[in-house]
C-alpha cells in the first residue's frame, strides 16, 4: 500500500492550529455573549488556564473502563472529524487524510463522540448523568436528521461522496457555492447546525444551571481536560464540514479563519437573541421546521 508518511506531521500541524484557534475562538465567542449581557466576560486566555489547571489536578477517581473511554471517544470523534476532511482546499499540506468516501465517515464521526460520551457517563452511575445523556441523545438525534438529509441532497447534486470533489465543484465565483445552487439543503443544514453547536437556544443539555451540567457531572481533572480539548476541536471540525459542503471551502488559512468565524457567528447571533428551549420543544422544533426543508431539498434535487 502506498501511504504518504509526510501526511502525519502535516495533520498534526493542522490539529495544532485548529486546537489553538478553537480555544481562542471559544473564549472570544463567550466574550461576545458576555458583552451582549453587558458584562466583560472571561479573559481571552481563560480556556488555556482552565485546561492547564484541569491537567494539573493531582487526584482523580474512576468508575470503570468505560468511564476512561468516554472522553477518549469524544476526543477521537472530534479529531477524526477534522482529519478526514480537507481543511484547506487544494493544499497538499492541509488536505489531511481525505479520500473518496469521506462524507459518510464524517457523518459517522459527528455522532461518534456523543455515543462514547453516553457510554462513559452511564458508567459513572450518577443519576444526573443518566438524565443528561437521555436528553442529549434525543436532541442530537433530532438535530442530526436535517443535516443528514441535507448531506444526501448535496451528494446527489454533485454525484459524489468525496468532500474534496464537492469543494472542487464549488470553486470559481461564490455563486457556485451550494448556498446559492441549493439553498434548501443549506437552510436545513444550518437549522441543524444551530442544534449541534451547544449554544442557546439548544444548550439545555450542557447548561450548568440545568440538571447540573448533564452528562459530564462526574467528570473531573484530566477527563474533563480531554473533553475541554474536544470542545475546542469539535465545533471547528464541524464548521469545516459545513464550510466545505455549503460555503465553498477555504483555499488558505486566512479565508479559513474568516469563514469559520462567520459560520460560528450565525449560531451565536441566534443564541444571544433567543431563550433556551426545553428538550421536547427543541425536538418538536427540529421535526416541524428543519426536517421538511431537508426532505424538500432531497426531493427537488
Amino acid at each position: 500500500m502506498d501511504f504518504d508518511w509526510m501526511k502525519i506531521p502535516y495533520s498534526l500541524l493542522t490539529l495544532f492550529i485548529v486546537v489553538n484557534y478553537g480555544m481562542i475562538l471559544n473564549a472570544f465567542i463567550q466574550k461576545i455573549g458576555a458583552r451582549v449581557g453587558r458584562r466583560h466576560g472571561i479573559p481571552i486566555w481563560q480556556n488555556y488556564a482552565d485546561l492547564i489547571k484541569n491537567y494539573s489536578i493531582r487526584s482523580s477517581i474512576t468508575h470503570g473502563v468505560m468511564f476512561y473511554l468516554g472522553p477518549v471517544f469524544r476526543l477521537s470523534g472530534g479529531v477524526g472529524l477534522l482529519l478526514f476532511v480537507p481543511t484547506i482546499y487544494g493544499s497538499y499540506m492541509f488536505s489531511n487524510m481525505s479520500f473518496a468516501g469521506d462524507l459518510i465517515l464524517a457523518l459517522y464521526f459527528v455522532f461518534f463522540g456523543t455515543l462514547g460520551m453516553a457510554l462513559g457517563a452511564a458508567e459513572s452511575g450518577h443519576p444526573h448523568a443518566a438524565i443528561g445523556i437521555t436528553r442529549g441523545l434525543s436532541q442530537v438525534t433530532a438535530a442530526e436528521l436535517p443535516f443528514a438529509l441535507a448531506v444526501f441532497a448535496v451528494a446527489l447534486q454533485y454525484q459524489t461522496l468525496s468532500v474534496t470533489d464537492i469543494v472542487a465543484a464549488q470553486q470559481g465565483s461564490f455563486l457556485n457555492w451550494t448556498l446559492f445552487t441549493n439553498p434548501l439543503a443549506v437552510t436545513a443544514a444550518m437549522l441543524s447546525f444551530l442544534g449541534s453547536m451547544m449554544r442557546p437556544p439548544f444548550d439545555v443539555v450542557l447548561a450548568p444551571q440545568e440538571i447540573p451540567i448533564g452528562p459530564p457531572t462526574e467528570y473531573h481533572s484530566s477527563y474533563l481536560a480531554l473533553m475541554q480539548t474536544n470542545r475546542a476541536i469539535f465545533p471547528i471540525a464541524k464548521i469545516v464540514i459545513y464550510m466545505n459542503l455549503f460555503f465553498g471551502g477555504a483555499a488558505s488559512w486566512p479565508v479559513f479563519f474568516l469563514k469559520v468565524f462567520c459560520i460560528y457567528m450565525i449560531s451565536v447571533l441566534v443564541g444571544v437573541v433567543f431563550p433556551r428551549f426545553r428538550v421536547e420543544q427543541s425536538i418538536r422544533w427540529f421535526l416541524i421546521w428543519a426536517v421538511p426543508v431537508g426532505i424538500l431539498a432531497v426531493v427537488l434535487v
Partner: protein
Amino acid sequence: MKPELEKRIVRTPDGQEFEVDPLRDYYCEAAPTVMPAAYGKIVEDLFNWARSQSLWILGFGTGCGAIEMRPLMTPRFDAYRYGVQWRPTPRQANLFIISGYLSTKTLKRAIRSYEQMQNPKYVVGLGSCTINGGMYWDSYNTIKCLDQYLPVDLYITGCMPRPEALLQGFEDLKKLIRAGKCEGANKYSENFDWYKANQKQVIHDWDMPDYNW
C-alpha cells in the same frame, strides 16, 4: 443509622437474592492520602498560575453570605473577568466558599461536598460567622470556628462582606495559590483523625463513611 443505609438482602424480580451494604457499595471508604507537588519548580509554578487563574467555585450557599455571590455573576461586579466561575458539581470545582454560618446539619453536607472535590482544593470562609460564630456565637445549633472542621485557606471578614470584599478576597487567594501556600487538601489528609474527631463531636447522627469520594 437510617434504615435505608443498613445492610439488607435484596430480591430481584427473577428471584435472585443478593446482599446490599450501602455504606460499602455506594461509597469509597479509603482515607485521603497526602499528594505533594510532584513536578519541578517551573512546571509547578505554571500549574499554580493556572490554578489561580481558574477558580471554579462550588455553587453551594450556606448562610446569608450566599446572597453576596449572585451580584458577582451579573454585570455589576462580573467576577468572570478575574477567572472565577461557578460549577454545579463538586467534582469539577476547586474552591469551596462557606458563605456564612454553618448549622450542624449543613456541616454534614459541606463535609461530604468538600471530600468529593479533587486534590488541590481551597476553602474560603466568608463572614464573621465562620471565624468565631459571629452573631450566632451562642447558638446551640451552629459551629463557631470553621477551622476546626475543614482546612480554611482564607477568611473574609464582615457581616456580611460586600461583593468588593469578595473580589479582593479572590485576589488574595490567588496570591496565596501562586506562592504555593494553599495545600489545604494535604493538611486535611495529614490531620485527618483530628478533623474527623472534631466533626463527629458536633454531628451526632453520623450516618456516612468516614471519608466519601
